[in-house]
Every structure is written in C-alpha cells, then in structure tokens.
C-alpha cells in the first residue's frame, strides 16, 4: 500500500547500514560518558539566602567558555582555585579576571575545635566578591557545608543582595574540602575599601564560628555605567532597558516592564552583548543570574567584558520566557491544598506544609532555572523566606533534567493563607528582535 514510501525508507536504512563506524572515537565517547556520569551523580543543590529582595539561581550550562587544558592546569596550580576553575568554564568574564590577574591571593586562617578554614583568594569589585577557601578537619567531616556567610567592610556588614555557595555533599572519610562563596552586594562597594572580614559558620559540630579578617592590595575596579532608557516591544509587551553597568565580575542590565503588559516577562535566555567582531557575552549561567530591586526593577547578569573594552557594543535579545498574568500558583499551606497552578499542567506541587513548599516542573530537558520567587499572603503581605533550593531529576527513561524541582522555605508560619507564589522563570516563550547600540559615554 505504501510501497513507494517503504522503498525510500529501505534505501535510507541501507545507507545507514553501510555507514562507516568510528569505532575508536565511540569507545572514547563511552569511557568519557561513564566518567562524566560518575562525577555528576551527586544531586545538585545550592542555597540562596537573601535579606532584602529575593534572588534565585540559574544553573544551566547553556554556553561554555573554551579554556585550554594548559590554561586550566595553570589556574589549578594557584591555591584553592579548583572551585573557581569550574566557574571559569562557564563564564568569559571570570576567565578575563584570571587573565588580567585581577584575582588576589589573600592569607587568612581561623581554627575552632580541630577545624581550620583557610582563605585562599578573593575577587572583589563594586558588585560583589567571590571567595575561595579550604576547610581542613582533624576528624572526618560528615557535613562539610558552611552557612550564613557574612562579609564586613571596615567593621560594617555589607548587605548582601544574594549569596551563592557550593554545597559539597558528604563523602566518606573526608578531611578537606575546597569551597567558594559568591556574595553579591546590595549597594555598590566604595572603591577605596581595603579591609574586610569573612564570618562563616560550619553546619557540623553545632555550628563552629570562624572569623577571617583580610585586606586587599589591588585597587577595586570602578563599574562603568551606560544609561540607555530605551523601550522595546516584543509580542505586544513593553520592556524598558534602563542601563548597563559593567563590573569585572558581571555586567548588570537593569530592566523594567510596562504595567499594562498582559504577560509577566521572566527570564531573557539569550540576552547578550556583541562587539564589532561578533564576539558575544551572554548570561551568567552558573551562579546568580538575576535579581529584583525593591522598586521592582529587574537586574540581569551577563558575563563581563570589562577587560576587553570593545569599541562597539550592541545589546541584543530574541527570546524571553513569559507567562500570562492570570497564570498563578496559589496554595493553602495550612490545609495542604493546591488552589491554582498554570493551565499547561507542567507544574506540580509535591509537598506543602506551613514552613515549606516543594514543586516539580516538567521541563523535558535542560531548563536550569530556579523558577519560583517571592510569596505573598492573603493580605498581600510578603512572606519571609529563609532559603530556596533547586535541583533536577532525570526522567524514567534516563532523559536528563526532565524535571526541575524548586522548594521555598518560610521563616515562620505567621502569615495568612492562601499564599500566591510568583514565577521567576517558566518554560513558555515569546520572541522578537531587540537590538540596541551602546555608545560609550
């Protein structure tokens, strides 16, 4: 009945059967796949702690920076750089920081009850600080995680806009652990600051406290501000690009949305800056990707071209996540009831209690965003969060990252039900072509 079609398919099969098989390359691929799998079997979980605005993580490896093995080796030989090498793989700005020797080794150690924390080095600019440190313990570390980092400048706490740190999982017989903290400042740090102090607490051993004062020699780079104030329209939604500020650690793009928009614009997946040669700086994909100011302005983080200083810079974006303003997630935590979820059925609430909700989103492959953000109660009051976490799970058939989970932990149960949870990201898209030329001031 379908002889003609079946004949064409058979010819195609024949061709596939005669395909030359790259035996050796495939054996390599199998070994590499097994190795990678061994490394990645840990569940990824990071925590965010934020006092003012809520910040959530992007943990996607959408683009990766090509780093030569020689470069990676050279960087690895610096003390405590393993965690930072991991960051460099995914961030051109981080690579430029190392290339330009903006990383500074510091020397500070603190001990408490057989546990020693050694600060290896820092990268500090006006937008934040990345610290790498090593923990050594005389006894086996059952839970190597450190919590509640605080950074002080000249004795004053630097208010964080968000903090990201890696979450080393317990391993057997572990005595040493390399860790890092990515601390975003709520306000630009005065460029003359020299003296700092890091305070952290180990989760193990009923919370040992460590205080590590240190000072830096290198001057703090001044952020470069480009004021734009341009309104663009994508799929009928108005987006106002306020400004771009370029620091060594990141470029911050400040964006507002018109209040008459029918959709909430969430993440800009392909927001980027391109120079005259086509070189592209895209989103930060391993760390904090965006945050919201108290006045509602969204700040998106791009990889920095601070050190390249291209003559021509063009700001571009083509695709953004957006969801109708009517689509909501509403739950009653006391009754344990889900009152509304988005109509596409992708989101499922997997746990509810007065102090925590956990949700599962069907992403069908790489998504990589923590997708929930702030919570408001029945009276419209914000509900305080202590942390949010995200991790992903493969599907039944082994499909990687088929589902992403996001949980929110509430500071107390002192709010009025039901609560509405806003989305930070969602796998629904609108498309357009936004191109803005950025002129040097």
């Amino acid at each position, binding site marked *: 009945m379908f002889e003609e079609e079946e004949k064409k398919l058979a010819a195609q*099969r024949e061709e596939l059967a005669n395909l030359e098989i790259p035996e050796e390359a495939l054996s390599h691929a199998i070994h590499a796949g097994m190795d990678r799998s061994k490394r990645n079997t840990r569940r990824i979980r990071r925590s965010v702690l934020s006092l003012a605005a809520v910040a959530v993580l992007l943990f996607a490896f959408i683009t990766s920076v090509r780093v030569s093995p020689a470069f990676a080796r050279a960087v690895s030989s610096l003390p405590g750089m393993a965690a930072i090498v991991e960051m460099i793989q995914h961030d051109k700005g981080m690579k430029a920081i190392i290339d330009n020797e903006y990383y500074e080794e510091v020397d500070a150690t603190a001990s408490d009850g057989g546990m020693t924390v050694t600060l290896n080095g820092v990268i500090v600019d006006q937008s934040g600080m990345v610290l790498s440190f090593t923990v050594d313990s005389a006894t086996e570390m059952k839970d190597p995680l450190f919590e509640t980092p605080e950074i002080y400048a000249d004795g004053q706490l630097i208010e964080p806009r968000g903090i990201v740190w890696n979450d080393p999982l317990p391993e057997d017989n572990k005595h040493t652990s390399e860790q890092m903290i990515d601390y975003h400042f709520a306000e630009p740090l005065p460029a003359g600051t020299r003296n700092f102090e890091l305070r952290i607490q180990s989760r193990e051993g009923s919370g040992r406290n460590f205080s590590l004062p240190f000072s830096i020699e290198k001057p703090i780079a001044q952020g470069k501000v480009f004021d734009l104030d341009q309104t663009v329209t994508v799929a009928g939604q108005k987006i106002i690009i306020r400004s771009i500020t370029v620091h060594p650690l990141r470029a911050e793009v400040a964006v507002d949305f018109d209040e008459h928009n029918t959709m909430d614009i969430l993440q800009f997946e392909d927001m980027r800056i391109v120079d005259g040669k086509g070189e592209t700086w895209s989103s930060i994909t391993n760390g904090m990707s965006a945050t919201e100011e108290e006045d509602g302005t969204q700040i998106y983080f791009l990889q920095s071209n601070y050190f390249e200083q291209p003559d021509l810079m063009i700001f571009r974006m083509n695709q953004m996540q957006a969801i109708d303003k009517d689509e909501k997630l509403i739950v009653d935590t006391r009754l344990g009831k889900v009152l509304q979820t988005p109509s596409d059925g992708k989101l499922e609430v997997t746990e509810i209690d007065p102090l925590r909700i956990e949700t599962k989103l069907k992403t069908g492959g790489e998504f990589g965003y923590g997708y929930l953000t702030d919570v408001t109660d029945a009276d419209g009051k914000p509900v305080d969060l202590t942390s949010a976490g995200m991790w992903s799970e493969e599907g039944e058939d082994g499909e990687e990252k088929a589902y992403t989970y996001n949980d929110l932990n509430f500071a107390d149960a002192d709010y009025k039900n039901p609560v509405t949870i806003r989305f930070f990201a969602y796998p629904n898209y609108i498309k357009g072509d936004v191109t803005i030329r950025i002129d040097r001031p």
Partner: protein
Amino acid sequence: MDETELAGRAAKGDPDAFLLLMETHKAALYRTAFAFLKNEHASIEAVQEVTARAYRSVRRLKNPEFAKTWLTRIMINYCQDELKRKGREPSVDRLPDAGRTDRHDRLEIDEALQSLPDEARRLIHLKYFEEMKIREIAELEQIPEGTVKSRLYHSLRQLREFFAGKGGNRDV
C-alpha cells in the same frame, strides 16, 4: 556470557559489564544517532551523552533482555531533544555532500522525516530503521499494538502527502 546476562550484571552496577554492554551496542546506537542528527561529530557526542544517562539510570533497567531497546529509546529521546534545542538556536545551514547521485532522494526523505511530529518519526524509525516488531514497539512506547499499527499507517500517509506536495512544487 550472553547479552542478557551481561545486561543483568550491568543493571546490578557492575561497571565492566556496563562498558562491555555499551561496546556491544555502540555501532547500533551510532547509526540511530546518525539517522536523526546526520552528522558524525554530533552522533559521537550523542553516544557519550547516552552512555552517561544510561549509566546513571542503569539500575532501573528491569528487563535485561531489553537492554538494547532501552538504550535505543534513550538515544532517540536525546536526539529529538537535541533537534529541538538546535531548532531554537540560530542554525548554520547544513549543506548536502556534493557529488552524490542519490543526493536528491536522500535529502527528500530526510526532509520528509523531519516534517513528522516526534512520535510519528520515532515509530517510523523503530519500524523501518531499527526493524523492530510491532509488539516490541508497542512495549517500548507503552501503547497497544493496534495503536502502533494505526499510527504507523497514519505516519506513512503523512510521508506520502509530503512527497506528493514536494512533487507538485517541483513542477511549478
């Protein structure tokens, strides 16, 4: 040791058995990848990715006698996701190999297959390229055999319509 025994040991977490299992099926998996991705490099990468995914979930392989089917399914899922992901990115047009006599036919069938919805393409692939039996496909897709047959029929008709449409356009 036969294949089922090998897969059984791999499912219990024996890395050597898993490696051997992958070696046994690597050519078939590569062909599957190539059928979808049409590119040597991307297909090798697919084998690496599928190895990683399979290794992570090998303990869930309940019926070792279906190890190859299970691997094929993971591969097809990966390839279809890859194609979707690539479709979202600005793509570089792939030029056909020059100097091939059957170039036109080959491109036409590729194009026709690409025009099919994911499920239809998967069924056609399993039936005509992997040469699986209707019963095996039904098991893999977890749909009744009758449904497999009717969907295959429907998919072939879509292919025919595609060819007919193309033919018409060519004459203009």
